[in-house]
């Protein structure tokens, strides 16, 4: 009898996930976004596209790191020749930098709005447009109702949205599927050569709906996210300490 109950519960949970828009990974369709172990944090172990992700960038350094991560994700999302929209009020992203992540910058359309109100409107309109690879918006404030509107828009169009929140004091609850924070980490060069190594970030998933929040360290190497091997990193630290 308890076994049967467990079955029922797990089936119900699967149903709930389905109703919430998380389709289980099909055997043939599982592509992954290339985030490696991080993807296990999401429901069904798949990076959810067609939803909205929230990324917290309190400082320009965070924004730069987030820009790097998003560029890496865009490489995957725009693989089929899609177009991406970047909506912002005070844009600082340098389009030429995207080329370093194998994203063609001319396939990114920047919408530079004057007012916060227009920003959310523009994002909602863009999210309704089927076939866009991704829509990224830099927002200071968003209410639960507003995020709900965006969520409804993507549920029909299956466009992936990213909200960059640059004011961490104004974080309310939103309908976003995950809340990220990307912090730059000191890079490591191979064999301790001088110079700067590959970009390395600490990726904190502060909140994941129906998933498991956690913290990961990734490096961007030759167009791939590579998890940082902690032991190796520790070893290098040890060596440094001995040397120092």
């Amino acid at each position, binding site marked *: 009898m308890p076994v049967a109950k467990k079955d029922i519960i797990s089936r119900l949970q699967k149903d709930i996930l389905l109703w919430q828009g998380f389709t289980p990974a099909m055997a043939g369709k599982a592509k992954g976004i290339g985030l490696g172990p991080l993807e296990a944090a999401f429901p069904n172990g798949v990076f959810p596209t067609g939803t909205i992700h929230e990324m917290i960038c309190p400082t320009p*350094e965070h924004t730069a790191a987030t820009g790097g991560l998003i560029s890496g994700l865009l490489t995957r999302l725009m693989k089929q020749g899609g177009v991406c929209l970047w909506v912002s009020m005070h844009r600082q992203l340098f389009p030429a*930098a995207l080329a370093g992540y194998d994203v063609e910058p*001319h396939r*990114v359309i920047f919408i*530079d709005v004057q007012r916060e109100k227009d920003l959310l409107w523009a994002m909602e309109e863009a999210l309704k447009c089927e*076939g866009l690879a991704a829509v990224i918006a830099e927002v200071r404030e968003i209410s639960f109702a507003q995020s709900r509107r965006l969520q409804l828009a993507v549920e029909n169009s299956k466009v992936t949205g990213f909200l960059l929140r640059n004011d961490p004091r104004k974080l309310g609850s939103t309908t976003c599927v995950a809340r990220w924070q990307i912090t730059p980490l*000191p890079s490591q060069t191979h064999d301790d050569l001088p110079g700067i190594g590959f970009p390395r970030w600490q990726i904190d998933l502060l909140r994941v709906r129906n998933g498991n929040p956690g913290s990961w360290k990734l490096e961007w190497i030759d167009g791939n996210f590579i998890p940082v091997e902690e032991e190796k990193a520790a070893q290098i630290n040890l060596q440094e300490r001995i040397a120092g």
Partner: protein
Amino acid sequence: MMNKRFISLWFRHLLTDWFTLRRPEFKALPFVFASPVRGRVMITATNELAEAQGVTTGMTAADAKAIIVDLQVIDDIPGQADKLLKALGEWCIRYSPLIAADLPDGLLLDISGCAHLWGGEREYLKEIVTRLRSKGYDVRGAMADTPGAAWAVARFGKVKPIIPPGEQADALLPLPPPALRLEPLVIERLQKLGFYTIKTFMGMGRSVLRRRFGQELLLRLDQALGNVDEPLQLLHPIEPYSERLPCLEPIRTATGIEIAIKTLLEKLCHRLQGEGKGVRTAILKCYRVDGHVISADIGTNRASHHIDHLFKLFELKIPTLEPALGIELFTLEAPKIDDVDPEQEVLWQSESCGLDDTDLAELLDRLANKIGAGSIHRYLPQERYWPERSIKPAISINEKPQTSWRKDRPRPSILLPRPQPIEVTSPIPDYPPMLFIYKNETHHIKRSDGPERIEREWWLDEGEHRDYYQVEDQDGRRYWLFRSGHYAGSQSGQWFIHGFFA
């Protein structure tokens, strides 16, 4: 071909009527407009009272004052008649779309196919004339097959104002030569020779008339008779692609305007679809009861004859349309149209859209119409090293990059619009600083790459070159710094921060 009909309206006292409307106290006074011509003050317009006492235009003001002692002489306003006629023409647009100002004191309306909407030609003309008279203008109107005949009958006709189709020749016969819109010199010569009516010379040989009175007389005669077509200088040239929607009742609600826009778009798009064309710009004009015209315009990135899409663009503009007492006429014009790229049937629905996708173009149209086309940017690579100039804005959505994007040099994710000065400690020449202070925070540099020297484009601006360093501080935050100019001991070049790396 449809039989053409024209109305000529003659404002007998255009300027003075207008002046009386503005200054009612002049209603009971004889007054004239006058302007100096070669040292003499000549009368350019008179009102009815002055005219009744024998004052006519072309007199000198002094002579007129001798006739009427208390005659008021008002300075002529240059260009006022033109302005008034244009305004009256705009008002008349409710009767016909084809209206021409007929200087100095008339209007010409091409009313082909309009009269039946008002229940016949007599009612139509009566409606126009009574409405204008009730506004306060002393107006005479006549209707004929040609503008010339209508003009003549409006000014010189004595029997009936409506000349039935094909009878303009009979109507012209008893009229005097000035009814043919001739030069004063020709009129004088005709009168000298005793031609007091058109009848007396109409039957004469053309070569004789040409030799005596010039080509102009023949042309005017032919125009009045309808042998030669007379094009009108229309106030509103008809756009080849335009639709009209007159309303029985004035429209005052947003829903009403929506329905009107939809109806117009359906008509326009149906035609465009047939011709394989699409709208690039469209203007909606709403003629209000109070005489004002309000308009809204839209533009598209790609030619479109998609009704829903165009309606969505107009929908954003509806709140700006102020109907006031009501709108009685809507017109929709498409001044700019383009061929529509025929949409190919898609065999395999691709998962995402490219830059040439219709959905994307429609999305950008909506954004451009709401927040301005200037807020949409796309960048193409430019073969220049100077970071600020390494990208250029794309002109159109279809513009392709001429060169490929450079990937060999590291470029920061965030580039500051202007490099910000920083304080540094840099002991060794050609080395990055040990630490730098930016926004009151000290960053100890642990790792660095560089320098990458970028020379200024001397043909554009003068100044020092930049030596860029990619640096990483104690917390792993990566920056793009540069020194302006060479390292030169204590007077070393200023350091700047220019970007943030991922």
